[in-house]
């Protein structure tokens, strides 16, 4: 167990030297590919995602009928959001070629599409499709999180109007079997090893809705938890998660503003 090592009990440091509320190193760039409408590259610790966005474009007629239901409501009133995820065979520790119809991947695609359906102003582009393609180059925990963050940046780069960023983070609860760790705070931003051992949830929020910006009440757009957790711990996990999302949002915003400054400087000089 990552928490059983003596370092945690003595110094409250996790295996990679972080404290309970420290995020992994987040490095991101936008406009990495000139050929697509929007693109981004995001690294969260060792999880590396490359994302490209194309759209809004003319609706794909050859998409199978099932796709029409993928992003919900009829496409004659809003744009359809299609998400494709490619997990590279070399992305995890063992080389594994993933089948296209892997249900886990399909579920993640659906979750991502639903999350953006709530923030993008899709009603401005009826009869069109916005395609988000995610290439996972390296997986080390928090896969859904990194995909959501990378997709947000790419959508901002593509210039698609949205109400706010969708920023996500993972939170784990302390192991419930160990009594002495009962008062331990939830862990923020898990790596691959911690994800396998501890029950965790992925939380994605936007700060929009009340029009008060970042200071307003954050709204949870994505909530996924696949492991067993006692009901009482949920409150702590959610509040730590929402706070973590706010910090990630700040980091993503910095990336966008840096790029904006660079573009302005190039234009002026």
């Amino acid at each position: 167990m990552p928490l059983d090592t003596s370092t945690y009990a003595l110094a409250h440091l996790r295996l990679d030297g972080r404290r309970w509320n420290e995020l992994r190193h987040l490095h991101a760039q936008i406009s990495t590919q000139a050929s697509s409408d929007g693109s981004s590259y995001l690294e969260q610790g060792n999880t590396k995602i490359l994302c490209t966005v194309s759209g809004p474009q003319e609706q794909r007629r050859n998409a199978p009928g099932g796709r029409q239901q993928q992003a919900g409501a009829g496409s004659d009133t809003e744009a359809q959001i299609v998400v494709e995820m490619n997990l590279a065979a070399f992305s995890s520790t063992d080389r594994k070629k993933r089948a296209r119809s892997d249900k886990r991947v399909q579920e993640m695609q659906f979750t991502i599409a639903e999350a953006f359906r709530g923030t993008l102003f899709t009603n401005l582009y009826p009869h069109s499709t916005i395609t988000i393609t995610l290439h996972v180059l390296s997986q080390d925990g928090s896969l859904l999180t990194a995909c959501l963050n990378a997709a947000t940046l790419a959508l901002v780069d593509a210039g698609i109007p949205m109400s706010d960023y969708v920023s996500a983070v993972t939170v784990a609860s302390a192991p419930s079997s160990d009594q002495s760790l009962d008062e331990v705070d939830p862990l923020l931003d898990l790596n691959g090893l911690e994800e396998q051992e501890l029950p965790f949830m992925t939380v994605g929020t936007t700060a929009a809705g009340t029009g008060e910006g970042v200071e307003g009440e954050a709204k949870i757009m994505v909530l996924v938890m696949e492991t067993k957790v006692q009901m009482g711990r949920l409150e702590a996990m959610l509040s730590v998660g929402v706070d973590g999302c706010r910090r990630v949002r700040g980091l993503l915003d910095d990336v966008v503003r840096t790029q904006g400054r660079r573009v302005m400087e190039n234009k002026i000089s």
Partner: protein
Amino acid sequence: MPSEPLPPNPNREFILSALRQNTRLDSRALDAYRPISLRFPSDPDTYGQTDVRIGKTRVLCSISCDVGAPYPDRKFDGVFSITCELGPMGSPSWEIGRQDQTEIVLSRLLEKTVRRSGALDTESLCIVAGQKCFHLRADLHILDNDGNLLDTATLALVAALLHFKRPDVSVEGEEITVYDVREREPVKLTLTHTPFIITTSFYPSQHRSDHDLIAVLDTTLEEEQCRSGSLAISLNRHGEVCNLAKYGSCGLEGLSVLTAVNMALDKAKMFDRLVKERLDEDEKMRAEVFGRKGVDLSAENERVMERPVG
């Protein structure tokens, strides 16, 4: 038919404005379930089949088992697979063979709730480590879709697992004998906990705003098509949440999630009581009608005490 036709705008507006005034089309409370009916087969030799109805939504679950080889990387575990196919019987928009989004969500949530949470103890299905184990197969058929498929399907699956009895097995050295139902009483499965899914649907309380979402349980199909988001909570009666999945484009507040989980706990306890009651009734019925004593078997002889001993 490519997709289920959405309700027309007047219907949609009517349902939403009714909810804002705390009423539903069938006069239920916002957190009330429709009448639930849980039936087991009347055939004495058949175990592990359930026919569950919540309102008009109807799901049939059937459990069967076979002896086979375990997975090479899981030598001590049996194999448990859940198949859920949506066919035209449940809804005219479902076609066999084409993976609908509903089907993916349904099968993934069932897998995560029942399999991944360890509700079924797969180690108890092992016969000889690395060589023979039970292959348990759960088949779910959606016979009618009138909303709230997740809750109904999970109830059917869990009740069927609790009802099912696998053939008894004895191992002597390398020889395995699988006894027929008529030779030895079949054995119940070991379930470590009984999870249920409670889906909470959210509706906007004002026009075009996420302010104060209204939370509603057990939606009918028409109500489901008008909702702006849903949260599927899988938990057991002890309050252990196995799975949380939020779908839809509305933004939830942390408090709404916690309130929904608290409401779900009450409903999970209700489901648990219901399943236990029906199982007890079924046991009694089988004992009376078919003379099967089941758990009441005892090794003691009937003694008539004429004089106190000693």
